[in-house]
């Protein structure tokens, strides 16, 4: 259990589970040709199970070659967080709309991306994607225009 204090939020959380949802390799036609540049399409989706105080952050990574013409591999990891003080950091309005603070989203996303990076390295080590290490991502990129998502 860890308490993360911030000017904007004070969350007490723990990781309940890390699940590798899928992983795949697509060997290119000329496997001996070294691939120097990788492009990563990262999709992040967060879901909340309010009754159980759980937040699911699912990270989908698609690895593509330099010119985006080939999908070299894909991996999806789900990080399940239990937010102990759920009611304090995630507000549920009467119409069911959830209000989650952006700093908390960024924190959960950062942890999940880092976890995915590790799982990805472990999954792809020794393959032609050995060097495809997920780059560090600026948390500012996680920002969205709105914090509200309708039910």
């Amino acid at each position, binding site marked *: 259990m860890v308490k993360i204090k911030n000017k904007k939020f004070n969350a007490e959380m723990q990781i309940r589970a890390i699940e590798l949802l899928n992983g795949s390799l697509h060997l290119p036609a000329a496997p001996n040709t*070294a*691939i*120097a*540049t*990788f*492009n*990563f*399409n*990262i*999709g*992040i*989706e*967060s*879901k*909340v*199970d*309010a*009754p159980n105080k759980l*937040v*699911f952050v699912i990270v989908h990574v698609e690895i593509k070659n330099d010119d985006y013409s080939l999908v070299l591999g894909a991996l999806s990891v789900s990080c399940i967080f239990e937010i102990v003080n759920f009611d304090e950091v995630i507000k549920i309005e009467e119409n*069911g709309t*959830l209000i*989650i603070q952006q700093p908390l*989203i960024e924190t959960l*996303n950062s942890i999940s991306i880092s976890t995915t990076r590790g799982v990805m*390295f472990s999954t792809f*080590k*020794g393959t032609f994607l*050995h*060097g*495809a*290490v*997920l*780059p560090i*991502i600026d948390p500012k*990129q*996680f920002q*969205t225009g709105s914090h509200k*998502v309708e*039910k």
Partner: protein
Amino acid sequence: MNKTTKARKYNSSKLQELLDEVTPLEMEQTKVKMQLAVRIEDCMKAKGWNKSQFAVKVGKHPSEITKWFSGTQNFTTDVLTQIASALGIEIAALYGKKDIQVIYRKEIVVKTVAPQTMFIITTPVNQSSGNYDSFPWKSQGNKTAITNYYSA
């Protein structure tokens, strides 16, 4: 000579004929029935009940429960209400609708240039002793983990 192993494609005209006879609607109906059966079984297990105990709760014979779980049962609304009531959940929950909301979704594209020798998995075994000629990890040659350069 390199031997390549490929997944064998299985084509059967009979199988295709059978699949062609199934309409998308029938396919969906079967899928819903199967999902419903699985959901009921999951909820039963979550309660810690076995089939016999569940049968008692819903006032049915255990063989009826087995039939329900087969995924072929066409449940009536009354039966579903009875099941949901016994399980202490709403009927909607039996259809897999959980209280889970998507609160965030984002797509990010990043690029990296992979340095070819940046990440090397090495073994702590001392290969210079000459006793490990057949050791499978010797293929790492004289490469050393970068972390080793920073060791005290």
